């Protein structure tokens, strides 16, 4: 499950996140960004590298997933 959230309106389409993604999971067109859920490992490197806080790691969702897996 994808735990990385994008606020597309904030994005400047600069490609910094794409350059650090180890899985090539980010698709970036002239003014459109998407993450491929099938490729993404939720490593959060893109989140740390985005200069302008467009990407967030959803901690609540991560905790839910963890709990659900425990049951």
């Amino acid at each position, binding site marked *: 499950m994808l735990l990385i959230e994008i606020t597309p309106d904030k994005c400047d389409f*600069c490609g*910094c996140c794409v350059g*650090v993604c180890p899985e090539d999971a980010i698709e970036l067109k002239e003014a459109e960004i998407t993450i491929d859920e099938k490729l993404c490992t939720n490593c959060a490197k893109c989140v740390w*590298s*985005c200069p302008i*806080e467009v990407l967030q790691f959803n901690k609540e969702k991560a905790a839910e997933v963890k709990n659900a897996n425990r049951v």
Partner: protein
Amino acid sequence: MRTEYDVVVVGAGPAGTTTARFIAGQGVSVLVLEKDRDVGYPVRCGEAVSRAGVEEFITPDDKWISAKINKFSMIAPNGEEVILPLEEEGFILERKIFDYVLGQKAVEAGAEILTRAYVHGLIFDGGKVAGVKFTHIGEEKEIHSKIVIGADGVESRVGRWAGLKTYVDFREMESAVQVTVGGLNDIRQDTCYFYFGQEYAPEGYLWVFPKGNNSANIGLGVSGNIGKKRSALSFLNYFLEKNYPNAGILTQVAGGVPCTITLEKITAPGLMLVGDAARQVNPLSGGGIISGMIGGKIAGKIAARAVKENKPELISLYEKEWDERLGRRHRNFDRIKDGIYNFSDEKFNSIARAFNKVPMEKRTLGNLFKTALIHNPSLLVDVAKVFVIKN
């Protein structure tokens, strides 16, 4: 537009258009595909270059020069300013125009450029790259070629599709944000300003580069290591509020600078990478315009030769030639960068204090590094390689 070219270049930044220019100049057919509407826009760049660097490719023209630089001002964490007169003149470009003119040069040499062409995959033929798949204004297209050149900038996906590991360790990626501001009266238009230290730009630096007419590019880069805790944007806003609370912001851009050594492999069968895509940025300064154009020139000449002589295997010559010209030098810069990243604020302050005792006429970048050395002897070998031995 045909469906087959000798060479296809992906990306119309300075590296891509320069590559195309040197290919077309040899009478070899070349098409450049660019996903954006314009060549040269948006500009994600501080726009600083050296005159000598530019002159290798094009005669300087005031049309695309915003400011001429003859000194650096380096500001230590405690606010002490060090002035460094430059031995070599520098320019702050108007890249919007500069990149466009580079595109024109390529076209004049015989290259074709197609904008709004988003490349999303490669065509293979017997394990060798043999063309690209792209979307052009909503239409799916394919172009076959003998060589594909990835000049797709920081993203560098083209190389990955051919099996090269191009992604950058997040700690070596400088996440950058920059504003161009107007109405600044207290900035000297012949000076590039650099701020160091924990407060403004840990593991990186903040720059103020004059753009003429009392305007300037103000930006900074921080390593992903820092970005984990706090974004580049929040550092920039903090600096602006503190130092230029009334600055009129004309533009804001984000960007990534791969401050790392060149990729181990910048060729694969049928494929070459140039510029940011090959990680040809000077890892110490973060400057990648000229070095990317140098990569493009070398790659372009070799690609043209490989096509003309019908010897695809010649493209591997590019790696060695790049390494001799700049790659090796960048490895030294990278080690110096690692040393400087680890400097404490106290160390920056004491270097500034010591260097300010050097008389103005004796100040050179080499001497500055020598001063830094006294404070950090472990850098000795690398600094010596760059400034004393010069390869």
